[in-house]
C-alpha cells in the first residue's frame, strides 16, 4: 500500500516536472501531497478529519472494501471526502495537457467527476489496478522528498492569480462554495509561509507518522490484541502520536453512554402514585421468573442457613441482644425498672412490710428473666398475701397504715 502510494506520488510529480512552469505547479503539488498525506489540515471543515485519506489510500489497494465504506456514509461526509481525493486515474487523463496551469485546473475540475465516480464507476476500476505498478520506475523515498523540498524552496511570495482561479474553480464544485474557496486559499497561503526546512521536516514527520490503514477483510478475528493496532474502524489511520492517541482513546471512550437523549420525557415527571392493592399476579410472576432465571443455589452452609431463615424454617440468628424478645418488644425499659408505682395504697406506707416490698421491687427491677406482666403478678401475689395476713401483722404491730 505504501509503495503504491509512493508510485502515485511519483506519477504526479513526474508529470508535473514535465510541465515547465514549476513556479505555478509546485504549490499545488505540495498541496496535494499534504492533502493526501496529512488531511489533518483540512480539519476545520470536516467532521471526520481522517476519513479522507482512508478513502484515497485504501482505494488504491482494495477498492471494494472502501466502496462499501463509502456507501455507508452520510451524503455530507461523502462530499467532504471526495474533495481532496485526487485519483491516479484522473491524473492519467490529464497527462496530455501541456501547461501546469491548465493541468491544475483540470485536476481540480476532475474532482467534480470524482464525486460521481466514487459511487458509480468504482468497481470497474479494479482490473485496471493491476497495470499500474509497472508504469513508472520507483524512486527511493528519500531522494523524492529531497527533491520535493528542493523544489519547494524555490518559490516564495504571494499566490499566483491563476492558482486562485483554479481554487475557485475547484470550490465551485463544492456545495459550500465560498467557505471552501477561502479555506483552500488559506491552505495555499499557509504553504507559502512555511519555511522550507520546516516543510521538509513536516513531510518526514508526516511520513513517519503514517500508519498503514488496513481493512480487516472480515478476518479481523485473527488479529491478536497485543499487535500493532491497525485501525479498522473506518478512519484509515489514526494520527498516532504518543499521548494524542491515548487522549483520542479517552475522548472516544466516553462517547456512547453520554450520547444525547431522546427528550421524550420531562425529567420531573413524577407521577407514579400506584393505586394498587398489593402485588398483582403479574408482579408475582415477574419475581418468580427472576428467581427461576438466577442461580439460587447456596454455595456454603451459611448461605443455606440464610435461605432457611428466609423460608422461616430456621430460628433466626441473633443479630443483637434483643433476640427472642417478641412479646416484650413493645414494652419500654422503664416498665421493667421503675416498679414503685405498683406499690400503691394497698400496701402500708411504712414499716417492715413496706420495707420488704421495696426490696422485692428492687430485686424484680434487676430480674431480666421475667416479663413485666410476670413482675406485676409477683407483686400482686404479695399484696394478696399481706392482705390475708393483715390480722396477724396488725397483732404484731408490723402492719402500719
Amino acid at each position, binding site marked *: 500500500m505504501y509503495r503504491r502510494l509512493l508510485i502515485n506520488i511519483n506519477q504526479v510529480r513526474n508529470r508535473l516536472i514535465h510541465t515547465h512552469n514549476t513556479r505555478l505547479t509546485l504549490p499545488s503539488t505540495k498541496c496535494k501531497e499534504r492533502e493526501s498525506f496529512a488531511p489533518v489540515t483540512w480539519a476545520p471543515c470536516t467532521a471526520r478529519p481522517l476519513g479522507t485519506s482512508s478513502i484515497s489510500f485504501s482505494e488504491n489497494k482494495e477498492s471494494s472494501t472502501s466502496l462499501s465504506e463509502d456507501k455507508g456514509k452520510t451524503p455530507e461526509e461523502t462530499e467532504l471526502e471526495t474533495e481532496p481525493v485526487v485519483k491516479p486515474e484522473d491524473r492519467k487523463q490529464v497527462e496530455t495537457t501541456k501547461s501546469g496551469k491548465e493541468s491544475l485546473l483540470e485536476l481540480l475540475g476532475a474532482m467534480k467527476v470524482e464525486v460521481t465516480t466514487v459511487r458509480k464507476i468504482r468497481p470497474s476500476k479494479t482490473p485496471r489496478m493491476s497495470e499500474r505498478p509497472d508504469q513508472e520506475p520507483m524512486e527511493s523515498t528519500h531522494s523524492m522528498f529531497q527533491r520535493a523540498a528542493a523544489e519547494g524552496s524555490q518559490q516564495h511570495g504571494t499566490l499566483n492569480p491563476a492558482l486562485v482561479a483554479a481554487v475557485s474553480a475547484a470550490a465551485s464544485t463544492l456545495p459550500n462554495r465560498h467557505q471552501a474557496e477561502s479555506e483552500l486559499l488559506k491552505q495555499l497561503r499557509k504553504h507559502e509561509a512555511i519555511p522550507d526546512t520546516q516543510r521538509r521536516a513536516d513531510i518526514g514527520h508526516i511520513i513517519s507518522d503514517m500508519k498503514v490503514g488496513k481493512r480487516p477483510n472480515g478476518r479481523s478475528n485473527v488479529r491478536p490484541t497485543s499487535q500493532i493496532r491497525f485501525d479498522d474502524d473506518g478512519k484509515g489511520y489514526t494520527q498516532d502520536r504518543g499521548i494524542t492517541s491515548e487522549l483520542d482513546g479517552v475522548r472516544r471512550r466516553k462517547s456512547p*453512554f453520554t*450520547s444525547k437523549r431522546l427528550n421524550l420525557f420531562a425529567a420531573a*415527571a*413524577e407521577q407514579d402514585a400506584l393505586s394498587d392493592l398489593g402485588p398483582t*399476579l403479574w408482579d408475582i*410472576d415477574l419475581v418468580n421468573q427472576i428467581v427461576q432465571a438466577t*442461580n439460587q443455589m447456596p454455595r456454603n*452452609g451459611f448461605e443455606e442457613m*440464610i435461605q432457611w431463615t428466609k423460608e422461616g424454617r430456621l430460628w433466626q440468628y441473633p443479630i443483637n441482644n434483643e433476640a427472642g424478645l417478641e412479646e416484650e418488644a413493645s414494652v419500654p425499659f422503664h416498665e421493667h425498672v421503675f416498679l414503685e408505682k405498683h406499690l400503691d395504697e394497698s400496701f402500708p406506707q411504712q414499716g417492715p412490710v413496706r420495707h420488704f416490698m421495696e426490696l422485692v421491687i428492687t430485686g424484680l427491677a434487676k430480674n431480666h428473666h421475667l416479663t413485666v406482666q410476670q413482675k406485676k403478678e409477683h407483686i400482686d401475689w404479695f399484696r394478696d398475701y399481706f392482705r390475708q395476713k393483715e390480722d396477724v401483722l396488725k397483732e404484731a404491730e408490723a402492719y402500719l397504715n
Partner: protein
Amino acid sequence: MASSCSQALRHHVCKSSRILQEIVIPKKKTWSKEAVLQALASTVNRDPTASDYRFQDDPYLTPKTSSEFKLFSLSQESGRNAAKYFISTYPKYFQKDYAQPHIPCLMPETLEAQIEEVSEAALIERIQMRKVKAAVDLYDQLQQAGTPVSLDVTNQLLDLICFYGDCDPAQENVPEQRNEETEDVQDEPQTKKGRASKASDKLKAAWKENNNAERIFALLSEPNTHSYSALIRGMVKYGAYSKAFSTYTDLLNNQLKADVSTFNALITAAPEVKEKYNEKWELIVDLLKQMAEQKVKPNLLTLNAVLKALRRCGTVGKSQAFPVISEMRALSIDPSLASYNHLLSIFYKPGAPFQGQTDILQEVMNEVSGKSFTPQDPDDAQFFITAVRICLDTKDIEQAYRVHELLGVGENWRLLGNDFQQNIYHARFFSLLCMMENIDVVLKWYRDLVPSVYYPSSNVMRDLLQVLDTDNRLDLIPQIWKDLKQLGHGNRQTLVEELLTLMAREKQNQEVQETFAECALDIKKMYDTGDRGKVMMSWTAGSLSDLVSVLLAAQRRQDAWEILKLFKTHNRVPSEELLDKFLTCIKESGDVNQALELVQISAGFCLPGTPKLIQRVQQEFLLSEQQKSMLSDLEIQTFNSD
C-alpha cells in the same frame, strides 16, 4: 489527680463542642435478620478442590462428569418435588405439627377450595388458588344469581384468566425442562432457548377469539385501567399483538390512561406488528411519547422492553440504543444487566462480522465493572454468556478477564444463571483461554475451574491438548489423561487417538517416555473394557501403531509385542515404518527369534516391505542355519506372491 484530669477533660470537651456546635446522633441501624449469616457467608471462599455445596453431604454422590452432575442435581431436585407433591396431595397424613413455634412452609398447602357456597369470598379464594376454570364458573354463577361482583375482584379474575391464557395452570414443581439439552455447549444458547421457548409457546394455547377474558371484560360496565391492563398484557403474552393494540385504542377512546405495565407489554409487541425497521422504531417512539403525555413514569422494564425491541430493528437499533439509555438515565433509571445484554446483542449479532464494534463491549465493561447487580429482570441472567460469547468471537481475552472479574463482585454470581448457562459460560471462557493464553495460565485456570465448577466437554479438552502441543508441554499428557478419564471422556475415540498421536509423535526424555508408556497401557485398558462392560472404541491402525511406538520408545518391547499381535486380531495392517522401528528395537536386544517372528508377521500381512525386512534381518542378526533357511523360504514366498 482525678480532678485535674476531669478538668482537662471538661476543658477539652468545651473546646471541641465550641468547634463542633452540635452533636449528631447517629441513626439507629436496623439489621436484617440474616445480617450475621451474610457476614459469615462472606468469609467463605470458593474451594477449587471441592465440588458444589449441594453435593457435599454424600461423598459417594460427588459428581465427576457433567452427566453425573446433571443426574445428581436433578435427582436431588426431583426428590424434593416428589416429597412436596405427596405432602400436597395427601395433606391428611401430614397434619402433625412437630415444630414449635409453628413453621408454615413445612405444612401441606391446602389445594382444595374450602368455601363451597356461591359468594364473592369463594371467588376470591379460587382466584388465590389460581383455579382458572373454577373461578370462571363461579363468576358465571354469581352473574346468573344476580350477585354483583366488585370491580377489584373482577380485575383480579381478569388478571388470572389473562395470565394463564384461559387455561388451568400446569402442575407446578415440574422439573427443569432445559436439562434435556445435550452437553454440546458450543451451540448458541440464545437461539436454542429461543427455539425452545417458541415451541413451548406454541404448545401453550394462543389467545382465542372471544375467550372468557374478553367475555367477562365485555360484561364490565365501566372497565378501568387495571381491567384494560390485564387484557392487553394477556393478549401480548399469548401472541394476539394487533388485538392488543386495538384494545389500547379502545382504552384511549374511553378517556382512560394506561399504566406502565401496559406500555411495557405494548412495546414488547411493537416489533411484531410492523414490518420495517423504521416503522417498528416509530411505533415505539410513539408509545413512549404517549407515556409522556399521560404522565406515566417508565421503569426499568420499559427500558429493557425498548432495548429488546431494538434488537429486532437492525441498524435503527444501533443508532437509537444509546439515546434510549441516556433518556432513561435522565429519568434516573439505571440500566440493569439485561439492558446491557440487549445492548450487546444489538451491536453483536451472532454469526455476523463484528467490525469496529470491539469497543462497545469495552464501553459496557467500563460501565459495569466493579458494580454489584441485583436481579431485576429475567433477562439479567443472559448478560454473562452474551458477554463471554462476544469475547470469544472477537478473541478479546482482556475483556473476558474483566467479565470474569465482574462475576466475582458481590452477588453477581447469582446472575450467571442456572447450571446449563454456567456450563456455557465456563466453556466459552475456557476455550478463549485455550486460544489466547500460554499453557501456564491455561493450566492455572484449569486447576481452578475443573472440576469444581466446570466439567469440560471433549471439544474443550481437545483445545487443551492443542495448547499443550503448541507450548511443547507434552509431558503433562499423562495428568490430562487421568482427568480425561475422570471426566468421562476416556471413551471418546477421536480424543484418545489424538492423545496417542501426540505421545507417539516425538521422542521425549526417558522419564517422560516411561510415564507415556504407563499412560498408553492405561489407554489400552480403556479400549479393552470400555464403559460398563460395553466396548465403546475400536482400534484403528493409526492408534495401534501410535501405541506401539510409544511403548517402543519407552523400551517396553514385551508390551509392544503384545500390541503388535492386536493388529492381527482386529484386522488392521501395521505400517512398514512401524515394523522397521520395531526391528531396530529388537536388534538392540539381539532377540533373533522375535526378529524372525516379526518378519513372519510382516509376511502374513503381505506387506511390500517384507523383503527389505528379511534383508535387514539377514544382515544384522547372527542367524543359525535353520533360521537362514526359514528366511529364504519366506523370501521366496513373498517373491511368489508378488
